[in-house]
């Protein structure tokens, strides 16, 4: 071990393991994480692979698929042995372990973090029974398509249509324009053979807004796109070049009636539309992913500051005092200023991630019993937290790169690749400015409610207190 680093460790005033246990959520959780990392890395980490940074775009995808398959084979084995739950999948995929194994993204992640959760959250019990089993054992690979070429965060503007035909008891899915082509979903291009498609539902001549439909994209044997399915990859991106992001056009594709996820709204055989208790229920998947994203960002910031801090301990530079050796750059206040806010951000965001995760679970449980009161508050919070945390994370990774000088510019430092992954989160799952405006809408409404003397929900209750003070 480098002597400077060793000295730093010798001088540490607290018990490092104690803090690690807290960050993991307890001694047991640390042990579980370590075991998981050990098992996965032993089997999947291969130092003899050609470094992914020197591969072509096509080779990157092929290598990502190969690694993802090995990883999922392992998950399947774990599942058989230990009845592994969703938490473990997320720990393997969404966390830093997943990104270490899968490098610049993974084409099967959305299968676990969106396809399965959406079916669980929005499918009927029968639909769950039919689809979840097949999805869990990877008989099918799914993804989730919402964003269109011409339509992003504003989901009411989506153009893809699903028109019910009572004569055949089928929905006809159609992309009427180029701008209605689905655009961006990971794994959509050449990996998934099923997809949840968000489309405007038409039945009995009326539009009922967006609803989720399961669409088969490719033949389960040959993997050839099915008739009417126009599918392919969207091309090279700033980062995430292993995620196989795709486009999808639908030319009058017919699917059975029960391929619409009907836990909330329903279309009966005769075409009668049965309304959901709340039109907001379809926002569930988006909120779930935004909440998850906050946690993901913590992992990236933790990685970036670990790299930059250790580097700052071993790097010596300049000679501020004559006849003395070059100091560690970690001794410069400007360097500390760059690094320490990153370290503190990990703790701040981790605390907030846990807090909003609890709130998400509580609100979801309330929704199950028909209580939607806190849904707008959670939506507003998840929007702005996602926006601020991803923006701060991107800034933090970039600051860590700069803290490593020219060496941080090397792809081998892993900081540029990490920046690509983090900055992507500023635009996916809702572009940050749009999300902040959605929160603003809630805040303005809350202000108006406070002005009318109404009681506000807990996270905005300060508006009444401060607002009253200002007026008085």
């Amino acid at each position, binding site marked *: 071990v480098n002597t400077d680093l060793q000295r730093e460790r010798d001088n540490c005033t607290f018990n490092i393991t104690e803090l690690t246990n807290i960050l993991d959520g307890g001694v047991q959780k640390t042990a579980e994480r370590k075991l998981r990392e050990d098992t996965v890395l032993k089997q999947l980490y291969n130092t003899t692979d050609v470094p992914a940074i020197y591969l072509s775009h096509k080779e990157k995808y092929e290598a990502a698929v190969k690694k993802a398959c090995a990883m999922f084979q392992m998950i399947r084995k774990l599942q058989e042995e230990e009845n592994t739950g969703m938490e473990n999948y997320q720990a393997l995929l969404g966390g830093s372990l997943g990104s*270490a194994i899968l490098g610049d993204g993974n084409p099967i992640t959305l299968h676990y973090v969106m396809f399965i959760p959406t079916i669980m959250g929005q499918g009927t019990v029968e639909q769950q029974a039919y689809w979840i089993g097949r999805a869990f054992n990877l008989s099918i690979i799914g993804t989730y398509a919402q964003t269109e070429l011409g339509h992003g965060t504003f989901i009411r503007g989506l153009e893809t249509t699903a028109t019910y035909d009572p004569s055949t008891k089928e929905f006809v899915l159609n992309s009427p324009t180029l701008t209605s082509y689905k655009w961006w979903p990971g794994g959509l291009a050449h990996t998934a053979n099923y997809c949840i498609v968000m489309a405007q539902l038409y039945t009995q001549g009326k539009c009922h807004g967006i609803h989720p439909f399961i669409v088969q994209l490719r033949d389960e044997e040959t993997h050839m796109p099915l008739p009417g399915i126009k599918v392919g990859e969207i091309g090279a991106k700033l980062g995430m070049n292993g995620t196989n992001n795709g486009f999808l056009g639908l030319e009058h594709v017919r699917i059975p009636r029960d391929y619409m996820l009907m836990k909330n709204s329903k279309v009966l055989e005769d075409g009668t539309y049965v309304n959901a208790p709340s039109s907001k229920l379809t926002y569930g998947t988006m909120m779930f992913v935004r909440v998850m994203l906050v946690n993901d960002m913590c992992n990236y910031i933790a990685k970036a500051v670990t790299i930059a801090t250790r580097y700052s301990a071993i790097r010596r530079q300049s000679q501020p005092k004559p006849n003395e050796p070059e100091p560690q750059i970690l001794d410069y206040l400007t360097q500390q200023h760059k690094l320490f806010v990153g370290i503190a951000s990990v703790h701040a965001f981790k605390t907030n991630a846990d807090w909003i995760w609890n709130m998400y679970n509580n609100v979801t449980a309330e929704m199950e019993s028909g209580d939607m009161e806190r849904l707008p508050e959670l939506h507003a919070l998840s929007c702005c937290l996602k926006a*601020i945390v991803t923006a701060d994370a991107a800034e933090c990774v970039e600051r860590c790169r700069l803290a490593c000088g020219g060496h941080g510019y090397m792809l081998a430092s*892993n900081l540029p690749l990490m920046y690509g992954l983090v900055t992507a989160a500023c635009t996916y799952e809702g572009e940050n400015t749009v999300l902040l405006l959605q929160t603003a809408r809630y805040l303005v409404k809350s202000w108006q409610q406070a002005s009318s003397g109404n009681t506000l929900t807990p996270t905005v209750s300060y508006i009444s207190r401060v607002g009253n003070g200002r007026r008085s």
Partner: protein
Amino acid sequence: PPWDNTIEGIVEGFYNVSAGKIGLCVAQIEKRQKSGMSYEDAWNMTSVQLISASEAHCRAIILSTYYKETQELVKTVSAELKTVLLQLVDLYVVYWAIARLGDLLRFTSISERDIEQLQNWYENTISKLRTNAVGLVDAFDIRDEILNSTLGSYDGRAYERLMEEAMKSPLNAQPVNESFHKYLKPLMQGKL
């Protein structure tokens, strides 16, 4: 209310900023509507301020949650770790107070003297954390295979790893690249 130069005071200050900004946005929208603008146009014209209000709201929530939850957490940890965790909270909250001084000056009664104290507080906290910098990142407990970085490995062999990685560049597979014979040599000999 008078400015309180404590963590609680700063968090309260951020709530004041947020509420102040939301109030201003509402007033702006109403004013624009009174001048004949539609609600949608008034909203669009106010959207830069609305984003700022939204960010202020989120900052207040993040700071407040971090502070409150850590206060609970430190009741259960060792004295040494408690000190460090509270230093991190101080650093984070004061960092954002300094970063958003303009807003605090606009919406609270913070003074020049308070700001000077904040700056000193920030610099002192940084210095206190210096000893534990490496310990704090070690506590994230990220294995080398996961960091996947020449610069951040646990053993600190950054320079050696940079050289090892450099040797993996496909260009280093041959001592002379074929482009020399194809382009450079003819150019140098005036034959291109």
